[in-house]
């Protein structure tokens, strides 16, 4: 089976974990079938690494600035706009929770994985030839959000589905 299918399994686990996060923490929903227009190229992205002995992959989410502000305000239960540091903190926590959910869901098929620290960045993600990405756009509450998996093409983490 192709690496593409394997990555899609990780992405499915990510969508599942994000759905659980939306319902339990935001008291909201995740709609993976919503009609979402093109997200802008430059987004604010947050990644958390899942690191194993044989490699690592990045679990990420991305949204535009207004969307990040909305997610952060929902997490902080705040009606006022939040400073950048609080938005970054909130995005990091969301990514951390989702990555933890992915780790739990993929635990039976993987070597032990450790969670890395959240990294928040702005701009357009650029991959090298050795890297691959799987992504899907969803509505996280009212926020158009991109969920992403990034890993090297040749690492075992991208090949665990071998049926």
């Amino acid at each position, binding site marked *: 089976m192709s690496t593409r299918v394997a990555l899609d399994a990780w992405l499915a686990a990510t969508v599942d974990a994000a759905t*659980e*996060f939306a319902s*339990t*923490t935001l008291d909201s929903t995740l709609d993976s079938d919503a009609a979402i227009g093109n997200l802008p190229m430059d987004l604010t992205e947050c990644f958390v690494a899942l690191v194993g002995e044989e490699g690592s992959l990045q679990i990420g989410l991305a949204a535009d600035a207004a969307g990040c502000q909305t997610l*952060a305000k929902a*997490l*902080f*239960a705040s009606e006022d706009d939040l400073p950048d540091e*609080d938005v970054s*903190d*909130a995005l*990091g*926590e969301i990514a*951390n*929770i989702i*990555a*933890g*959910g992915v*780790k*739990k869901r993929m*635990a039976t098929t993987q070597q*032990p994985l450790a*969670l890395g*620290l959240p990294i928040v960045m702005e701009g357009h993600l650029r991959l090298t030839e050795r890297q691959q990405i799987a992504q899907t756009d969803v509505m996280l509450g009212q926020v158009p959000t991109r969920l992403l998996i990034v890993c090297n093409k040749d690492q075992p983490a991208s090949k665990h589905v071998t049926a």
Partner: protein
Amino acid sequence: MKKLLIVDDSKAMRMIVRRALRQANLGEHQVDEATNGEEALQKLRGGPFDLVLADWNMPQMNGIDLPKAVRSEGMSVNFGFVTSEGTDDIRDLAMQSGAQFLIVKPFTPEALHDALKPLGLA
């Protein structure tokens, strides 16, 4: 009044735990916060707490070292982890460290209530 200490380096997560505590029908309680294990240890030295709710991965002193440090100083306090680390291995480590429970993020107020009930805190 029950006195609780939330230990997490994320302000957002401390806010989430505070909100869940409010929604978990715990009755009257007072909540204090620390951003890492060292700061938590200092607050615990300053007076008795009924419960520590700590993250697992934190700078300076991480969650797993905190209950050991508390015990080594002869202090006694109920201890629970609120963490994204939900595997069986992590759960075993948490219990071995002296924690009474581990709640995996994301969690509901009901899960928090259910964890605190056996400790007489809900």
